[in-house]
Each structure stands twice: as C-alpha cells, then as structure tokens.
C-alpha cells in the first residue's frame, strides 16, 4: 500500500460495535469501508450501511471473496470465537486482520470519540441557546406581564365574575409560556445513542424558525413556505433540528431580523431536500470557502460559536446527505440540505 492511500476496511459484525466503526469511518477522509457483514439481517449496521451506500452482506465468506482485492484491513467485531478460523480459511490473500482484544480496544476508542462528539454537539446547542436569551426573555415576559397585571387587579377586585375572567386569562397566558419552555426543552435535550426515527423536515424547519427568531431584536421577517408532503428522513430528531436551527439562525441573523426568508422542501430521486434562502448581504467568495471550518465565524463575540455550520455539515454527512451553499453578495444566501429520503 502506498502511503497516503485511503485504508480500505472490511467490518465483520454489524451490532453496536460494527455500527460505531462504520459511522466513524464513513466520516474519516483517510478510511474507506469496502463492506460490512453480519449473519443477522436486522443488524443495525447493515441498515446503516445501505443508507450510506456501503455494501452490506449476511455472508462473511461471500463478502471476503468479493472484496478481498480492494481490502487492506479486516476488522472482526463479531465477538464470535469461531470467526478467526473462518476468516483464515477464506483470507487467501493474507489481508491483515484486527480481532480479539485489539478490536475491542479500537471499539472502546470509537465509543469514546462518539461520546466526545455528542458532548461537543450538546455544548454548541447550549451556546446557541445562550445567544437566544434576550429573545426568549422577550417572548416569556409578554405573557408574564399579563399574568402579573391580572393578579394585581384580582387583589383589589371583589366581583366574582371579573375574578373568574382574570383567572381564565391567566391560565391561557401560562399555557403560552409553557409552550415556549417546551420548545426550548426539546431543542436542548441531550441524546447520543437513541434509535433513529422518521423526522419530517417541514416540522424541523418550522420548529427551527421559532427558535431562530429569538436571535434578533427585530422580528420583521417575511416568511414564505413552499413545502411538499412528508419530506421525511431517518435520524435523531434533535440532530436534524440542530442542523435546521443552525442554518435558519444564520439566515435570520444575516438579515438582522429584517428581510425575506424562503423555506422549501422537496422529495426527488430518493432524496428529501430542505432549502433555506435569505435576502441578507450574502457571503463573500473568500469567506465561502471557510464557512464549514470549525471555529470559523464572522459574527461578533457572543453571537456565534463558529461551530454551527461545521456541526450541521457533520450531522448531514453522518446521515449520508449533502449540504450545499450558494451566495451572491448583496442578494442573499441559499443553503440546501439533502438527505436520503425515508418516505
């Protein structure tokens, strides 16, 4: 193998360990997964492999014989003691095998990396909420003000009908506050190992817009929605929402709370697509090349972490999707998020 060539890896075992390896390798530029195998048809790694367009097989012998020419390493995480002998029998080219305790060590490191990444994603979400605080306070303070006024009025009110009316209004106002808090709780929830479920991009965009509106003092954005029915993707709802929040918040902040925002979704060629277009000042060409770099930001201190787009890209790629941007200075910016469709 020439140094610098990607390492071509075959993964045997598609349970939790094999799936974690697959996830990590799929986003590692120096590693290519040539295939993954597991006896169990419903193994999570096989399903994930199909989503990532990685060959998935239930037959280890068949996978080795088909892919051995292009394979530089076999990683056995089946935990099956008979597997070593079985591989040896079919490994006529003598491809290097990682198994037993070394494979377990690798798996532990991968799990550790996944946890750290989940924590970084969570930290970015919490930092983003930090930039929303004024907006959240604003939206909570309005109904809170009504609650206080009504209660003050009830203190020196003796007419039962008026008191009942006020109490009813208080209940309504508290419900509005509770809805705001619930939206935040959903976004802030920490998850890293939940199962993948179907996530509707229309709902994710709408929820993201509610949160993004907290990011500016002014709220004079003209929103146009152009949605198709059920643009669904498989993923963790919190992660898909995080992607949408990061992109929509950038759009709202770029327009300084004033302009036109166009949100659209499409389903075509097996892909579900969300497009977010703003009428902000646009991104200069020399900046455009760096926007996905970690810690790159053009925002003033306290308005952004420099991680939003990097994390959005990482999540989208993890789900086998694409993120694309086009921008014209003085005209606006359009982001396109494309995921394998689950609908």
């Amino acid at each position: 193998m020439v140094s610098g060539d990607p390492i071509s890896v075959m993964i045997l075992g598609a349970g939790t360990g094999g799936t974690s390896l697959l996830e990590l390798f799929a986003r590692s530029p120096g590693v290519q997964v040539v295939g993954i195998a597991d006896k169990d048809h419903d193994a999570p790694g096989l399903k994930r492999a199909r989503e990532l367009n990685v060959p998935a097989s239930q037959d280890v012998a068949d996978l080795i014989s088909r892919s051995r020419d292009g394979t530089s390493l076999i990683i056995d995480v089946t935990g099956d003691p008979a597997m070593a002998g079985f591989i040896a029998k079919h490994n006529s080219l003598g491809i290097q095998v990682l198994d037993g305790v070394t494979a377990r060590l690798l798996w532990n490191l991968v799990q550790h990396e996944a946890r750290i990444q989940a924590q970084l994603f969570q930290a970015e979400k919490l930092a983003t909420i930090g930039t929303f605080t004024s907006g959240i306070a604003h939206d909570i303070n309005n109904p809170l003000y009504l609650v206080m006024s009504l209660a003050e009025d009830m203190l020196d009110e003796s007419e039962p009908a008026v008191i009942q009316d006020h109490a009813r209004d208080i209940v309504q106002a508290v419900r509005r506050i509770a809805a705001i808090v619930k939206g935040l709780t959903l976004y802030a929830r920490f998850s890293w190992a939940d199962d993948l479920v179907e996530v509707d991009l229309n709902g994710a965009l709408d929820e993201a817009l509610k949160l993004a509106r907290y990011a500016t003092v002014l709220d004079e954005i003209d929103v146009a929605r152009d949605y198709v029915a059920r643009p669904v993707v498989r993923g963790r709802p919190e992660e898909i929402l995080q992607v949408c929040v990061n992109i929509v918040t950038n759009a709202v902040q770029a327009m300084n709370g004033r302009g036109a925002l166009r949100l659209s979704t499409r389903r075509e060629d097996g892909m579900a697509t969300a497009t977010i277009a703003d009428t902000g000042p646009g991104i200069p060409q020399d900046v455009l090349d760096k926007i996905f770099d970690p810690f790159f930001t053009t925002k003033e201190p306290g308005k952004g972490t420099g991680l939003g787009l990097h994390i959005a890209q990482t999540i989208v790629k993890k789900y086998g999707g694409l993120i694309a941007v086009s921008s014209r200075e003085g005209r606006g910016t359009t982001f396109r998020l494309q995921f394998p469709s689950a609908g």
Partner: protein
Amino acid sequence: MVDMFGIPQKNSRGRVLVIDDEADVRKSVTMALTKSGYEVIEAEDGQQAIGMMNSGDNPLAVDVIICDIRMPNVNGIEAVSYFRAQYPSRPVLVLTGFPDIQLATSLMKQGVVDYLVKPIEREKLAAAVESAMKHRSKAA
C-alpha cells in the same frame, strides 16, 4: 387635560398612548394606568401610532408615549426616533421584553425618559408615567 377633541377631562391625570403589538401588554398597561387615573389610548404598531398622532389638523393630545420595541410595520426604534423628532415635547417611555443594556443606552441617548422591562408592577409603571409627566411640563 384635554380629550382627543380638545375637550378637558376633569378626572383624568393625563393621557397615555401605549404602542405594542401584543394585546396582552396593551391590556396590562391599560388596566394599570386606568386604575391610577390615566386615560389610555392603544396602538398596535408604530405605523398606527404615528397615524394617530398626525391625524387631522389637531394632533392627538397625548401627554406620555409608552412604546414597545419589537413590532411589525414601523418598529419601536423607528417610532421613537420619529416621535423625538416630530414631537420633542412628548416624553417617551420604552416598555419592552428585551433586557438589553446596549439598546437601553442608545435609546436613552435619543432622549427616551425611561427604559422599562416587562413585566413591570402596577405602581412602578404608574410612578414612571408620573415622572414622565413632569418631563412634559419642563419641555413644553
């Protein structure tokens, strides 16, 4: 004190224009200030408020303006600068849900009498309006 047709109102301590897109807030301010003896007129946004102030050849006789910031059409920042330019003798109070020091400082520099953050207790709002009324006498 005069009403909108220039007719004196004996029992009113003054007339307050409250500008806020949130019905919750208009209702709260009206309840609080009515209790304290003020007359309250409501506008839903800056545009409507400016229209009311400029209507006819007899501008609405308003003693104090209470203005929100985050509103559609003409927002509070624009409305405040309009009122400061066109009606410099009318004291303007900002009543907002945004606890934002930068914004407060910049508005106070424009001559806003007070920057109040919601929710505000009835007595505090009444006291702020009362103190704003004194500004009016000085300026007018």
